[in-house]
């Protein structure tokens, strides 16, 4: 087990180095001059060539690319992601703030999606072919196929503009004012959970149905065990394995995929930071955000793989 863990951790580091390197060169390939953004250049203002050169010098962009790369990698090893070009704040500081905010949506959304998804999946599997199966499957299919910018805006229209029971968009600090936080967070959490919920539900249903057809179920049934015990003690346990993989993957996806929800509900999390930093060619922030997202994605996958061992004693890593 520990050997396996070491191997996986080694792989993680290599993966991160690869991501960091590709990222570094891709970011520098982006058209556009960060110095222009720092000086407020754009549709409305044209800085002089000397000013641009001076800022490029200050930002270290005049050095050869290899020098910049080694400086960046050296910083990474020390845990220093550099300072934002635009507001000069350390990138790690902003990432910490943003990650906390994003997690405030992602964790509740995933918990909601998992619990409700598994529950509805069991329900649908138990009543295969009946009305409630079609009903829940239908809802799942809708949740799965309606894009978030539609469902999110519909939720805003109903709850914020027509009923006026919830604010339309915004953010409040969870630790300072939890009730206000909840009023802001509830709609984005629901929107964010829709797609994974539908996925989890479908996967649970399929996986359960597959298990119901297995020989051991017939054996247990022949022994006269009640349907309830069969469902929850035998079938569910075996059926959950692929569901957990799916939940892990969906959580990883949410780290990068909460972008539209954060945009629609004006939630200032990681994705909004990424979009803004790309727009302003803020290299250190782009690199930091993508690196953190990749790291979380890899981490979630690792945790998912390891959790198999606890659920299914048959799986023991060597």
């Amino acid at each position: 087990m520990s050997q396996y863990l070491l191997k996986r951790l080694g792989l993680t580091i290599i993966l991160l180095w690869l991501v960091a390197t590709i990222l570094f060169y891709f970011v520098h390939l982006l058209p556009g001059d960060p110095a222009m953004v720092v000086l407020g250049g754009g549709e409305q203002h044209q800085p002089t060539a000397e000013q641009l050169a001076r800022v490029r010098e200050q930002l270290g962009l005049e050095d050869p690319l290899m020098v910049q790369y080694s400086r960046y990698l050296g910083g990474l090893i020390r845990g220093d992601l550099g300072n934002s070009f635009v507001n000069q704040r350390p990138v790690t500081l902003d990432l910490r703030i943003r990650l906390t905010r994003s997690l405030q949506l992602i964790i509740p959304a995933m918990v909601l999606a998992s619990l409700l998804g598994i529950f509805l999946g069991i329900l649908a599997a138990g009543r295969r072919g009946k009305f409630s199966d079609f009903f829940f499957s239908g809802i799942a299919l809708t949740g799965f196929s309606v894009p978030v910018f539609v469902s999110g805006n519909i939720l805003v229209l109903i709850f914020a503009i027509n009923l006026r029971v919830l604010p339309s968009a915004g953010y409040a600090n969870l630790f300072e004012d939890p009730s206000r936080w909840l009023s802001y967070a509830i709609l984005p959490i629901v929107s964010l959970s829709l797609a994974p919920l539908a996925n989890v539900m479908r996967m649970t249903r399929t996986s359960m149905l597959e298990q119901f057809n297995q020989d051991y179920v017939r054996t247990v049934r022949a022994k006269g065990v009640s349907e309830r015990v069969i469902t929850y003690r035998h079938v569910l346990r075996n059926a959950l394995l692929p569901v957990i993989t799916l939940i892990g993957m969906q959580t990883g996806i949410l780290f990068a995929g909460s972008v539209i929800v954060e945009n629609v509900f004006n939630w200032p999390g990681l994705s909004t930071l990424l979009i803004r930093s790309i727009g302003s060619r803020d290299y250190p922030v782009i690199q930091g955000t993508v690196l953190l997202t990749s790291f979380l994605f890899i981490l979630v996958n690792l945790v998912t793989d390891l959790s198999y061992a606890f659920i299914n004693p048959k799986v023991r890593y060597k």
Partner: protein
Amino acid sequence: MKRNVLLTLTVLLLTAALLFPATQVFAEPQSGGTLRFGILRDPEGFDPHINYGTTSTAVQGNIYDTLIEYDENGEFRGALATDWEMEGDQTYIFHLREGVEFHDGTPFTSEDVIATLDRIKDPETNAARHGRIAGLFNYEAIDDYTVRIVLREPDATFLHDLASFTLYIVSARDIENGMNFNRETNGTGAFMLESWEPEGEYVFVRNPNYWQEGLPYLDRLIQIPFQDDQTRVNALISGEVDLIEYVPWQDFDYLDAEFSLFTHESLYNGIRLNHNREPFDQKEVRQAMNYIVDQQMALDLAFGGHGDIKSGPLQPAGSLFYQDELEGALLPDHEKAMELLAEAGYNSPAEVPPIEFTVAAIAVHSDTAEVVQEQLQAFGLRVNWRTVEVSTMIENRTSGAYVMQQDGLSMANPDPDYLRFLFHSRDGSNHSVGVNFENERLDELFEEGLKTIDYDERKAIYLEVEKLLIEESPWIFLFWRPQAEAAHPKVQGYTTVPGGLGMYNLSRFNQIWIDDSVQ
């Protein structure tokens, strides 16, 4: 009889009550209350000498003051300077306001003005107005409340620099103490920054020692960034905020009916023509382009008809140098366009080589460009679309790597001298330098216009400039595109500055008050 009198009185009173229901127009400004303001994006930083884009002016402009500012007519009025006079053509004397204090209680004196100019002059600051201030001949404090500024040459645009949103006065003591202006604030303005979170709420409180007696009315001002247009509009409609900027034009009509809408024209849409590339190497073809394109139709289709095309070609209606004479000078005229093409040696539009049209992938540009492309194709020209990133579009301006490029621009101030930075052969960093555009007469006029102080003389000079520009047609001149802020009807005292100065609307929240009687 008595009963009749009573009845009449009652009816009269009721009628009066119905006719004048606590009319807003007559209401006295009320003090107190909070204004929640939805802004376009995170202000990023607070340095009052750096240009972070218009959104930041709402932060910088309410914390800090300039020496002079624009009034509701777009003309200068005193702010931290009460008044000023000129000695000759190049020397300005400013008399400073006495009894003004910075937020930390330090009194404001001429020392602060000098230290501010020094800070902008220091290249390390990366100040937006660095070039302008570094180019001054001299500036000095005569006494605690008088400052003399001497220019190298007469410059009719100098006062605009002083009124601009990157020339806010900071305290000499803060500079000395090495304050981080990007993260800390200390101005003389109506509001003090109380707390902020990146991309969260920026909370301002009333400055109790503000130099304008009785102002500001608001107790608190909270600015919240909403990047998404629809989200920002939703926030206003649902009551989450009371005021928003950058209203998408699709929502103009609805918000105008149900809320208060403040429209203005501060941004110009036009199309650059590269006169080094075929077919625009021939002046007649460039001229023909201006007669093929129907500006009104482009504005109708791309911006729902909101905005202004009357301008001819480059001054918004309502600005000081708007030239009535040129109104309608560029109306579409396909016959004339045909003649011009024939003069250039093309007997039909189909003979003109295909034109590559570079367009940045932002709606305010591409919507316009699509209409123009349609119009050119309907005329028989071949136009190939090339989508680029915004930053590539901006780089193209100085590299000239385009044949025809959709673009947009704004004036930093209402002075027509901004055209010099487009079309002067050497100063034209925004156009001429990229494509080596040169017209000797234009250069002369620009230089003369800059030095001339008399308004009528200047207006005549810029009339000739605009006529020459129509003649040369270095651009397809289109229209001033619409921009707007929208507010809940309870928000009173919001003023817009005319003549392309819309960006200054947001830096004057000292006059805004909340009418509690409006729900």
